[in-house]
């Protein structure tokens, strides 16, 4: 199909599948309402189709275009049939128009900024090959292998026999980071199949679509609940963070992980705050996808859900369904975990090391390095603009005013995310290498997660102060 047409066609199909899955929630709504859910539909389809394919991969099935067509058709049919049987209320709110001219001008400028940045991201995506070698070294080759060979243990299982010496350095002939789940590899291979050849620019094209879907989905889910003069500028702050945009052309899976994790936790809060069954259903899909993107996805999800659970203890009766939904999301990755276990593919992060005081005592240099390097990235305004300071400042102001711990949840995502990555870097035998090579990416999910709550915090502060109070 060619580069642009191929990536566009794949994403249009994924969005179509997403719309079918959303049918129980959108049936009977206007065309405009359907259009407003384009971002949610794209991320639903892009999440679900490769997720189901990754569940099928351990059976030995070749994950190529025929498998894609069948899975996409089945998911679409299930969604359409489900829409005939039961109904979920998406409760699409309308935004209250800005009250004054200044507020309207702010909304217009922010909307322009979002469209302009996304436009440049899209154009730039199709003009750039990923700058990170992980993409062509193992993420995409894994997808090609799943398509051409199937899930072959020869390529995934560590085997000391399969080492080659080049000069003074060994290289392995199996995939490095074999523990990572298959979602991103499968999606990238589908892009190449639709393009018709291996064109690395399709990777960044796909990331641009995911970024557009993310902003569209976040805006739709918060639309009418956060006033536009807060929502759009806050989304612009998040979207325009230099490091977010840079990583969107890196080709690695950290940006998709950040996107799905942030939306999953936003939906979890939507369930707790509004008892929206629609939000809970979205949570299952987004959380299952986040788990299927990278190995650390499941740990970050559990950590962030624990923070949300503590912060929302007042609504504890709603926590059981939430954790049940989380268990359902984790269950979608059981086939992959079972295959890994059967084929000796262990996680690169060793729990034994992480819980061993003697091991940790012997590697305190990594603790110091982790604290410093991860802390530098986390607090860098040059990399992440104002997301971190705003999340902390708004949280503290809200805490002082209302004396409710829930205000600190976004700051806790950052703080505990930081501690978590310091800890696993400390326990990692290759922690020194990984801190230098990957620490800037470790902080991406917690920062994007904190960022998506900026509009919620600001709205709550302003509506509580009596200056607005229109959107709840």
């Amino acid at each position, binding site marked *: 199909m060619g580069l642009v047409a191929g990536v566009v066609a794949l994403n249009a199909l994924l969005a179509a599948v997403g719309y079918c899955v959303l049918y129980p929630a959108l049936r009977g709504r206007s065309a405009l309402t359907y259009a407003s859910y384009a971002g949610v539909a794209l991320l639903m389809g892009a999440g679900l189709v490769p997720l189901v394919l990754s569940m099928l991969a351990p059976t030995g099935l070749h994950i190529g275009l025929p498998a894609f067509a069948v899975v996409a058709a089945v998911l679409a049919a299930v969604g359409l049939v489900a829409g005939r049987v039961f109904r979920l209320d998406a409760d699409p709110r309308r935004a209250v128009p800005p009250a004054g001219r200044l507020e309207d001008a702010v909304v217009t400028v922010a909307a322009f900024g979002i469209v302009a940045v996304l436009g440049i991201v899209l154009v730039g995506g199709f003009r750039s090959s990923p700058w990170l070698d992980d993409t062509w070294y193992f993420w995409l080759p894994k997808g090609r292998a799943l398509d051409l060979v199937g899930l072959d243990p020869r390529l995934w299982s560590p085997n000391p026999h399969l080492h080659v010496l080049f000069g003074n350095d060994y290289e392995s*002939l199996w995939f490095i980071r074999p523990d990572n789940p298959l979602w991103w590899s499968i999606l990238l291979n589908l892009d190449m199949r639709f393009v018709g050849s291996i064109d690395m620019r399709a990777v960044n094209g796909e990331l641009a679509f995911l970024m557009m879907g993310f902003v569209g989905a976040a805006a739709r889910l918060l639309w009418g609940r956060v006033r536009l003069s807060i929502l759009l500028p806050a989304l612009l702050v998040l979207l325009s963070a230099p490091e977010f945009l840079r990583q969107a052309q890196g080709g690695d899976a950290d940006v998709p992980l950040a996107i799905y994790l942030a939306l999953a936790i936003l939906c979890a809060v939507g369930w707790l705050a509004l008892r929206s069954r629609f939000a809970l259903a979205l949570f299952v899909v987004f959380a299952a996808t986040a788990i299927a993107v990278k190995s650390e996805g499941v740990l970050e999800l559990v950590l962030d859900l624990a923070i949300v659970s503590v912060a929302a203890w007042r609504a504890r009766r709603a926590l059981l369904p939430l954790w049940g939904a989380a268990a359902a999301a984790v269950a979608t990755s059981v086939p992959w975990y079972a295959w890994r276990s059967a084929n000796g593919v262990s996680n690169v992060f060793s729990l034994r090391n992480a819980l061993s005081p003697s091991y940790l005592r012997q590697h305190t240099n990594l603790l110091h390095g982790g604290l410093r390097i991860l802390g530098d990235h986390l607090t860098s305004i040059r990399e992440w603009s104002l997301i971190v300071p705003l999340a902390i400042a708004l949280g503290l102001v809200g805490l002082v005013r209302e004396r409710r711990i829930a205000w600190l949840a976004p700051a806790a995502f950052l703080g505990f995310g930081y501690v978590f990555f310091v800890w696993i870097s400390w326990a990692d035998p290759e922690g020194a290498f990984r801190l230098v090579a990957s620490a800037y990416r470790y902080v991406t999910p917690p920062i994007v997660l904190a960022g998506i709550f900026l509009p919620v915090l600001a709205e709550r502060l302003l509506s509580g102060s009596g200056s607005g109070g229109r959107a709840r």
Partner: protein
Amino acid sequence: MFGPLPLRVRLGLVALLALLTVAVAFAPGRLSGPIRRLANYRADTRDPIYNAPIDGRAIRRAGAILPDSRGVTYYIHTRPVPQLGHDLIGAGLLFFLPAVPVPSPREAQWVLSYDAPTLLPKGVRAEKTYRVGERIYLIRVRQG
């Protein structure tokens, strides 16, 4: 959805912002840096951005010649430079599948000879040689 801003004012504001964006995009020096980086003014090719100087076209040619069968094995023969070896392994996994790499020429049916000091490693003999680039060959081999 639209607020109290008159349509003409709104359109004027958008036009002004568009003009400003275009001006920044084409401004000389550091001002246009963020947009220049994001839009990638000097577009990349479809090939991976290799760390070592890899001939992407030669790799694709070799990938097209290798039989499309999972039983096919290949060995990478090159200079003892770690980064070059690393990148060639990655390129092979990307372009040569379903053929799989092997650690020894004795297990290989094919050899990718990439800017190597000798055409072939010891222990194998060429059956058919394809020149795919400057000092880059894909060779079907039999065990010597």
